């Protein structure tokens, strides 16, 4: 008791936490206002807004899974090199050699779980009619987040560089080959010619842009790695910030008027 008291009264502790322990009503309010992480939340909230039966805590769980993916993902990057020579072997080593190889399981199952919880979150937002005014635009941001979540999962699927990976990506990205006008097997691409020279070929169409090559190869691995580890997580982080900010600005969790 006394030790705890001493620590909480030390200069170091007080410099980190700008508020006393939230033991009484006043300090429970202060803590929400002065703590960086907590200031995401309002100070008080309608009881039904935090009822598990109402939100299922699904948005929160999705966000937590995103954080888990970030941490395990960074740790995995220590062990993984995105080259044809090493990618597969590094994953193999995670399974057979590395002592914290379970990181890969956490990361993979966390990713599946995040796709599922995103859908469930969207499902509850629909079922409570929470996309209605004034929350229309936050729903739109949500749809983009959904798309990015799927793309995160999709780009990550390639990285183990096993049969499962390259063929799933091959099947998935073959669709781009059929994009109207922009895919070299797509409808209407025949129309894009200049002086009789075909503009859309297998070396210049939408699929090539996605893969960086005519088929899933080293360029694709590099491209997907960068998208997976940097570009998409950054975009998701930005949109999440806006998403949460809008939840507050739109009047907090929805409820009957």
């Amino acid at each position: 008791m006394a030790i705890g008291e001493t620590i909480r009264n030390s200069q170091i502790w007080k410099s980190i936490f700008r508020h006393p322990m939230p033991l009484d009503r006043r300090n429970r309010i202060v803590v929400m206002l002065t703590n960086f992480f907590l200031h995401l939340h309002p100070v008080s909230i309608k009881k039904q807004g935090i009822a598990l039966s109402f939100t299922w805590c699904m948005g929160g769980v999705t966000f937590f899974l995103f954080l888990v993916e970030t941490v395990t993902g960074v740790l995995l990057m220590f062990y993984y090199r995105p080259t044809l020579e090493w990618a597969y072997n590094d994953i193999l080593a995670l399974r057979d050699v590395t002592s914290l190889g379970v990181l890969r399981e956490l990361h993979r199952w966390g990713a599946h779980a995040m796709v599922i919880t995103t859908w469930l979150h969207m499902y509850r937002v629909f079922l409570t009619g929470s996309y209605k005014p004034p929350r229309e635009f936050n729903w739109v941001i949500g749809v983009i987040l959904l798309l990015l979540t799927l793309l995160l999962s999709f780009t990550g699927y390639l990285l183990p560089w096993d049969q499962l990976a390259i063929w799933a990506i091959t099947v998935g990205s073959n669709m781009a080959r059929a994009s109207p006008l922009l895919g070299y097997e797509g409808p209407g691409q025949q129309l894009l010619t200049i002086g009789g020279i075909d503009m859309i070929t297998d070396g210049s169409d939408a699929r090539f842009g996605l893969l960086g090559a005519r088929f899933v190869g080293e360029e694709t691995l590099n491209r997907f790695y960068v998208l997976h580890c940097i570009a998409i997580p950054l975009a998701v982080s930005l949109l999440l910030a806006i998403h949460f900010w809008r939840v507050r600005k739109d009047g907090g969790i929805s409820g009957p008027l």
Partner: protein
Amino acid sequence: MHSNGLFLKDVAGFLGSYYAGLAIMNAIAAFFIWRRKNRIGEAGFWASVALAMLVLASLAMSGSASSVPHLPESLRKLVNTLSGPVNYTAGTTALFAIAFVFRKFFVKPMVAWTVFNAALLLMGLAMADENFASIVMKPDNVPIVGLVFLLAFFTWVATKQAVENDERIAQGLPPLEKENDEKVLVWPDLVYTELICMVAVSAFLLAWALLLPAPLEEPASSVKTPNPSKAPWYFLGLQEMLVYFDPWYAGVALPSMVVFGLMAMPYLDFNKKGNGYYSINERKFAYLTWQFGFLELWIMLIILGTFLRGPNWNFFGPFEFWSPYKVEVLNNVDLPQMFWVNLLNRPLPRVAADAPWYAQIGTILLREAPGLVVMAAYLFLLPPLLAVTVFRKYFAKMGLIRYLVMINLMLLMLSLPLKMVLRWTLNLKYLISIPEFSLNF
């Protein structure tokens, strides 16, 4: 390959703990009903269910393969012969319809608990089948099994509250959510809930990661194409659509429209009711459209694509061995063929390759006239027709632009089930088939 002794020995341990888990679950339920609700009869019933599960558990672990509880061979054969894309789609749609119409019955906790137990029992019995188990237990497929149960659970949670609210609203009371109007402090009420959620999710994820190794197949080889080649599971609904449409539509146009439609939704739904609480009766049209699109056209197609599509994307029953040699007769015909050749007994309109471009285009248009007429009627005749009949009120409220966006999204969404029906009944391959421009529909 049929369930053999060796396989059953392998799953016996798993099934034993599975049934033991069900026994514990029901025992807890019985205890809860007895102590909290004081309904002794019901408690006794669930206690005996728990006992029955214990018997199943000991049977599974008795060491003899033949005593592992399983579905009779004849029943599994019957299920296999009865299952196919048509029965699957019609059957699941019918199940959803029944669940919707009788929702007041199904949301009762005891009914839901019974259905839940039945589903788990059926799942356990089916797992004693080698073919079923090999698909369901594939590491990357396990999340989908979880998804099915989670979706069922949360649909129940939501429907229960919606039914309750609808009854209250009918009596002139505000929705239940309104009763919880008072404000509470976020610390501790919300912060602690979040903390508990985080701990629970971490524990769950850790257990999952420790129990189920992530898959790693042979090193990538661009010459060895696996059969079947499947996209990641969350895209398998799209891959399943390839059975009915060309990639430009199933893989590019339709998914883009789904994303666009989702984004447009809040601007199309002009119904001000049902904002911020569970309700079905106050927004039936939006509710049914959503549930059909999400549960049937997205989730059910994913399940079909994952569990029931095998080599060469052929359909396999849940207990069928995925033989790469299964042959399915494809005798699908394009509409121009049906119209010109089969109906009018004439050859398809043709033109010499060196004819001027307008003759080429004209011939294509003539050849595809039947499909173009059908499409034009669908896309251009139906919207105004619906605007003055079924959707008259909607049209008045939405105005021209919003109505047009809404109706076109509806028609695009419905193009999938319609094409399915045309395929199953008429063996129609394409309504329009213009290979000259890689445009098939």
